[in-house]
C-alpha cells in the first residue's frame, strides 16, 4: 500500500482576532526585533497515511482537515501531500 506524508497547515481566518499572536508580536519588540508588523499563530499537523493511490489519500486528508483538524467557523487550512513509498 503506498504511503503518504502530509502536512496540514491550520490558520485562523483573517477576520478572527489572534490575541496570542498579538502578545507574541509585542514580545518580539521587547526582544529587540523591529519591524514585525503582523504575527499570526496557527498549527502545523504532520500526518502519515496509507492509501491505494494519491487521489484517495488526498480525499481522506481533505475530510480529516475539514471535519476534525480545523474548525471552518474560525480556521482555514491548506494541505501538502507527498508520496513517500
Amino acid at each position, binding site marked *: 500500500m503506498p504511503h503518504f506524508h502530509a502536512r496540514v497547515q491550520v490558520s485562523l481566518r483573517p477576520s478572527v482576532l489572534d*490575541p496570542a499572536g498579538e502578545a507574541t508580536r509585542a514580545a518580539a519588540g521587547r526582544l529587540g526585533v523591529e519591524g514585525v508588523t503582523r504575527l499570526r499563530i496557527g498549527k502545523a499537523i504532520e500526518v502519515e497515511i496509507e492509501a491505494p493511490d494519491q487521489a484517495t489519500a488526498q480525499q481522506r486528508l481533505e475530510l480529516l482537515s475539514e471535519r476534525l483538524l480545523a474548525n471552518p*467557523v474560525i480556521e482555514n487550512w491548506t494541505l501538502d501531500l507527498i508520496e513517500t513509498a
Partner: protein
Amino acid sequence: MTIGIVVFPGSNCDRDVRWALEGCLGVPTRFLWHEERDLQGLEAVVLPGGFSYGDYLRCGAIARFAPVLEEVRRFASEGGPVLGICNGFQVLTELGLLPGALTRNIGLHFVCEPAPLEVRPGACRWLAGYQSGEEIALPIAHGEGRYQVQEDQLRQLEDNGQVVLRYKTNPNGSMGDVAGLCNPQGNVRGLMPHPERACDQLTGGEDGRRLLASLLG
C-alpha cells in the same frame, strides 16, 4: 424525572452539576460516561464544564466524536432539552448544534469572577420565565470564551431572539456580548457562565437555580 450528565475524560464540573440538581433542586441525575449510548428515561441532558479530552486540538473538538454525543444529537433533534455549560457550550458549537465558536479570551487571561448578565428570553422557550432585561450574576471561569460568529449570522441570532444571555461588562471580547444562546427551537442551549456554582447562598448566590430549573419546564 431524571437528568443525564455527560462525563468525558477531563470533565470537572460533572459533580457540581449533580450537586446543584440533586442537592439544591431535588432532581435525580444519572452520569453518562462518554462511551454510553443509552439515554432512555432522561428528561434532559447537561454537558458540563471542564477540559474534555484535555481540550486537545481545540476545545470540544475531540469530544464531538464521543459515542454518547451521537445519542445526544438524536435526543436534541427530537426536541429533548440539552444544556451545555462552559466546555459543554464549546462542545455544542463543535458539534454544530449551536452556531459559532468559542476562542481565546481577548486579554489571554483565564477569567474567574462573578459576571453580571442580562437575560433576554426573546422568542426562545429557554428562560421564558424571566423578564426581558432582567439582571442576574453567575460565575465565569474560562480561558476560551470569546464568542465568534460571522456578522450576518450574529444579526440573525439577535433577530431570532436566540441570544438569551449577554454580559453586562464583556470579560472576554465576545461578539455581541454573547454569554449564552439557544437554537431556533430553544431546546439546545449553551452558556459560558456556571449556573451550577450559583445554587446556594453559602457559595455566593442562587441565580443559577432558576436557570437550571428551566431545563425541566
